[in-house]
């Protein structure tokens, strides 16, 4: 039951403040590089970072930025939770039952390779340009990825531990909570982390094509005006939000799930 944890292999020799210093230095270096390039090229379609942050501040003060980011985050959250629940259920059933797996494997490959844009267009055509259609489109794009990852976990469930749980009369609830789910946790974490980045990118496309609010809708609007400063302002603001979710929520959960490892 030993797995290598990349997080503990790399960078353990460095103190934490040095790692933070490298990270901050790298970001500052990128901003300086961007500023210099923008000043050299002098084109209205390549704004300086100063101009981008000024646009971000304006949009923040008007309340627009937080409103649209909020709408996008809400869609990301609902679609993400739906995809994780449905995808995990499919993955567990397929991983535990050979016949079902054999039959539905082709379906899974089909959905894995279906372009996101096709799913979005079909959902809007079939269900109208509604909130429900938008969220279904995002979830359907993510479900096959979750199912494939969790299926691997369900296939590798330990028979030894299942027998132990049976002999010590765990019952189904204790078995699920203490034996099965902890074995699947790394697979849930893997699909959650890749899932979050995939889901928010698809949500933007869904908003661009059929919603009248959200970051994707705003990007579409500013694209029509060729306002690159504002497009970059929204993109940067959203990257910051996603990083806060990664460091503030996902990494602490991963650390807690992995606390028993040597």
């Amino acid at each position, binding site marked *: 039951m030993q797995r290598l944890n990349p997080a503990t292999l790399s960078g353990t020799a460095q103190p934490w403040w040095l790692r933070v210093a490298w990270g901050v230095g790298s970001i500052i270096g990128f901003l300086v590089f961007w500023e210099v390039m923008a000043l050299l090229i002098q084109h209205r379609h390549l704004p300086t970072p100063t101009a981008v942050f000024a646009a971000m501040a304006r949009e923040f003060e008007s309340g627009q930025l937080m409103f649209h980011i909020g709408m996008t985050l809400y869609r990301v959250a609902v679609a993400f939770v739906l995809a994780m629940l449905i995808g995990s259920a499919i993955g567990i059933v397929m991983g535990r039952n050979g016949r079902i797996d054999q039959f539905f494997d082709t379906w899974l490959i089909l959905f894995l390779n279906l372009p996101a844009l096709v799913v979005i267009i079909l959902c809007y055509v079939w269900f109208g340009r509604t909130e429900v259609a938008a969220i279904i489109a995002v979830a359907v794009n993510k479900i096959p990825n979750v199912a494939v990852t969790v299926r691997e976990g369900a296939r590798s469930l330990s028979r*030894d531990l299942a027998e132990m749980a049976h*002999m010590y009369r765990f019952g189904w609830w204790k078995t699920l909570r*203490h034996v099965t789910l902890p074995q699947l946790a790394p697979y849930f974490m893997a699909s959650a982390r890749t899932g979050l980045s995939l889901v928010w990118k698809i949500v933007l496309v869904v908003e661009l094509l059929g919603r009248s609010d959200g970051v994707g809708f705003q990007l579409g609007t500013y694209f029509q005006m060729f306002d690159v400063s504002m497009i970059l302002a929204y993109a940067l603001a959203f990257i910051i939000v996603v990083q806060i979710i990664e460091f503030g929520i996902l990494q602490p959960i991963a650390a807690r799930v992995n606390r*028993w*490892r040597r």
Partner: protein
Amino acid sequence: MAAVGDRVNTLANGSLKVRVERKIFPASGTREAQPVLKNIAIDIEPRSFVVITGPSGCGKSTLLNIIAGLDSDFEGDVQLGGAETRMGYIFQSPRLLPWRTVGENIALALPDGDPRHGRIDEMLRQVGLEGFASQYPERLSLGMQRRAALARGFITEPDILLMDEPFVSLDDPTAQSLRELLIGLWNRRPTTVIFITHDRQEAVMLGTRILRMSGANATIVQDETVRLSPSERTDRDKVLAEQRRIFRET
């Protein structure tokens, strides 16, 4: 299909009657189907310490899994005495949940709200793991993990305790101290034990009865009572003499 765990109240609690007419491993690849067990009939008295010994691959573990009810694909039946027989199984590997602490692993073997939860610390002290309740198993040595598995097996106070080479791949002094620990726990609370080993000395030291299996015949070829008093079991010479008698070693 076989009936496992039929409640027959004419048998005393902790006793069991095992009949295996035939157990076959199905053919796989180029290997033909072959019987692993046949014509096995064992009657076990309550609170006896039965050691099943024999070369590796002779079907000892298969027999234990049949008794445990983990394997029901055989011809024959297993009858347990008493109305409600509680079984414990100490496996060849400790099979602790690595994501639960030692204390949690032991607690999980007990039903929720069971009064014996209050005895976990005492149990850990008895197996020499005092102060390790909040440690995760992978941070412990194999010997300590085996102690934790012993504690889990004993805390439930089983009527029948099954043990499958629980001290294999330990260094000699560690294995010896765990054997003494097992004798101590068993003397304090005698229970029916079925213990598998291929170590003859271990068999004689622990068992009150030894069943020898042979791989070629896939059955039990010798059934012997061990003539040693509890105090003689820690005497190396006495154990060796008894080992020579039972196994006809020269």
